[in-house]
């Protein structure tokens, strides 16, 4: 880590100790966050590479770039890497790890060694996943549907299932650490009603980590046993029930969608008040809607199975429950909008991402309602409409929030500003590239193009060319921050402790923080987001 001479004068968590051992054996939540940042970014680019190959294959109607079998592996591994090794750990393990103790005025997470252990589990599982890829990959789709995955696929299902099984324990330990830390380690005066909304959303995420992930673990363990010992638990020829697998799988994997989006919502709830210079509108509602999403999110899983043979009455109930999730989600969108109303808005890079999030998440969320409607779902089930919908939520939502948060807290993490002009350029590039990639897929899906095929009828080509063009723009948009953020580590402007004039305890300590975060444990006597009491930064930093 290249830290320039100017910063070395003040001791901080980056220069307190040196050498590779001091990083690999660290129990400092801030260093572990940076370890996660590097490894999660690595998997993001691996997953992105698969996405690019998928889009290149779909540039032409004929299956000409890769074989059909290879294509199956590409979309499977794109999904598995992006979901389990990028999206799920992204904000909680990087920003959450860094910020949860700082935002509540604690010196560290409750269990620092377990925090380090969770990173090693992640690395071990990631290594196993890479081994699975280089030894031939897996072609079941990221969902591992049985009996294809247990009885028919000749690919590396066992390795992939084991990798994701192990990786789950990394999530569980992170969630456990967050829950205990938030309950037991808050600074004096920091009541539940004064907590930043980032903390509330991470609390909600932790609940899902803790209650959902073990179910996925046991499901994949059963798949593993079934393949290795030939048991027949999910094999219909021997009385097993594939639907049971789908129920168990989606019991985790639908709430997993909220694992991806809730932290982003927390980030947006921090950014919007800061760049509107206003207290968040309806604090209690935003906080409780996070918990609401986590709770209702556990009751909607079977909307993935409307055409899989569940009873009509079950489908009706799950359809209604899925509609219910829209209520807390809409509360958030309306409250962010109301926060901006008559605010003093400045459009810095984090705010651009936050605005992008609000718009794209709204589209992603509303198309989710189309899919929750039984009739429409039968029509667009397993088409590109579904692909476009969940990419609007996961990429347009979750990744936008992640990028916004990374820019917002970058000065705190590194002590340096990223170049603002490049930041804005990248944010706009990502927004345009994203829409060009995925909006055509809504149309393709509505026209009837099914997902997971390497070939398609020629009349769909125009939309596919647009989508592939968008994907290349998106790739440039993601590479830009990679370059200028590394650049800023050495050449960026010195940030100061609170460049945004932001509320929140993390801004009341130095940048980068000292190893124990605060010289003296702070005592909180104010409400969250008290922007009427904080002066705006004198000069908006410009790159």
């Amino acid at each position: 880590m290249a830290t320039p001479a100017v910063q070395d004068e003040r001791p901080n968590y980056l220069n307190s100790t040196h050498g590779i051992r001091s990083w690999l054996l660290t129990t400092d939540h801030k260093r572990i966050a940076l370890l996660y940042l590097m490894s999660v970014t690595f998997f993001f680019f691996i997953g992105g590479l698969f996405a690019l190959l998928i889009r290149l294959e779909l540039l032409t109607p004929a299956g000409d770039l890769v074989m059909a079998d290879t294509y199956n592996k590409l979309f499977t591994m794109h999904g598995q890497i992006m979901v389990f090794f990028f999206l799920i750990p992204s904000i909680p393990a990087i920003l959450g790890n860094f910020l949860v103790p700082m935002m509540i005025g604690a010196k560290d997470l409750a269990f620092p060694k377990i925090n380090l252990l969770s990173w090693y589990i992640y690395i071990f599982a990631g290594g196993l996943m890479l081994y699975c890829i280089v030894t031939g990959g897996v072609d079941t789709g990221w969902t591992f549907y049985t009996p294809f995955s247990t009885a028919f696929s000749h690919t590396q299902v066992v390795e992939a299932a084991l990798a994701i099984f192990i990786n789950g324990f990394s999530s569980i330990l992170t969630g456990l650490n967050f829950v205990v830390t938030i309950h037991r380690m808050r600074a004096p005066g920091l009541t539940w009603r004064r907590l930043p909304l980032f903390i509330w959303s991470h609390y909600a995420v932790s609940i899902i980590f803790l209650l959902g992930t073990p179910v996925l673990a046991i499901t994949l363990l059963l798949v593993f046993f079934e393949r290795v010992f030939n048991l027949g638990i999910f094999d219909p020829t021997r009385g097993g029930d594939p639907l049971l697998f789908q129920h168990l799988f989606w019991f985790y994997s639908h709430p997993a969608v909220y694992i991806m989006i809730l932290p982003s919502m927390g980030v947006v709830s921090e950014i919007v008040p800061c760049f509107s210079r206003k207290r968040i509108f309806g604090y209690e509602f935003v906080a409780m809607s996070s918990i609401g999403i986590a709770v209702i999110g556990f009751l909607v899983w079977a909307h993935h199975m409307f055409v899989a043979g569940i009873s009509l009455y079950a489908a009706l109930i799950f359809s209604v429950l899925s509609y219910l999730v829209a209520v807390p989600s809409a509360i958030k969108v309306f409250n962010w909008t109301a926060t901006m109303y008559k605010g003093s808005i400045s459009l810095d890079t984090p705010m651009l991402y936050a605005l992008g999030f609000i718009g794209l998440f709204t589209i992603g969320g509303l198309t989710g309602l189309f899919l929750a409607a039984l009739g429409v779902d039968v029509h667009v089930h397993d088409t590109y409409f579904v692909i476009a919908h969940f990419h609007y939520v996961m990429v347009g939502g979750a990744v936008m929030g992640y990028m916004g948060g990374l820019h917002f807290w970058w000065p705190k993490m590194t002590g340096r500003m990223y170049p603002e002009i490049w930041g804005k350029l990248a944010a706009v590039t990502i927004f345009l590239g994203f829409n060009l990639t995925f909006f055509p897929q809504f149309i393709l899906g509505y026209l009837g193009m099914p997902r997971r095929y390497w070939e398609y009828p020629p009349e769909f080509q125009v939309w596919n060319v647009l989508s592939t063009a968008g994907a290349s723009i998106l790739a440039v948009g993601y590479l830009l921050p990679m370059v200028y953020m590394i650049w800023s580590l050495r050449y960026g402007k010195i940030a100061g402790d609170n460049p945004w004039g932001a509320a929140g305890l993390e801004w009341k300590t130095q940048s980068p923080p000292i190893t124990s975060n605060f010289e003296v444990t702070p005592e909180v006597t104010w409400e969250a987001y008290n922007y009427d009491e904080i002066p705006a930064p004198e000069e908006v930093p410009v790159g």
Partner: protein
Amino acid sequence: MAETSALATQEHEHSDLQHHFADMEQQKEASTLGMWVFLGTEIMFFGGMFLAYLVYRLKYYNEFATGSQSIDIWLGTINTIVLICSSLTVALGVKAAQRGKRKLLIVLIILTLIFGLAFLGIKGIEWYQKYQEHHVPGISFNISDIQAAHPHTPLNPGHAQLYFSLYFALTGLHALHMIIGIGIFLALLWMAWKGRFGPDYYTPMEIGGLYWHFVDIVWIYLFPLLYLIDRKHIP
């Protein structure tokens, strides 16, 4: 008041206090809550398998009931008693640790370890019986002996294999937790030997005990579900 603050300073200097906690009280609360939360995840972990069990038991009742009758109920009963005894020694051990009674604590932990190992040994005998009877799912799986014992109830070998798959998966997962528990109690034995526990520090014993009780409770559910499905005669 002066007394409490003096106590607080004393606690501040306690050698077992980690740097990021304000005092021993906070550290103990955090560790205990951490274990409770972890046990919550364990419930969900076993829960998935219990659900699979429930689905197939309702669907294939005859195979499950006859399969259940083929298991030695006496071994299961003895194991239940053994585990309940171990829970007693653990509960007494937590009290002994709290009161700083080193010798008593060491004896109780060793008794717990003996009960735990006895459970695993008896479980091993039971599994070996099933292996000899060709009731282990796989290529040599065969239920002709169970079918012969119930000639008037046609049994589907695939469905019976589901019962035994779940039997081995559930008891195997439980045994794995027992082995981890024995590892934890070996560590606690070492700590007790060193005289680490006393009135102001016995958290490891308490959360180790929580874990042990949890593993016992899982067995309290497994025993009726796997051994006592239907004890009346099936023709």
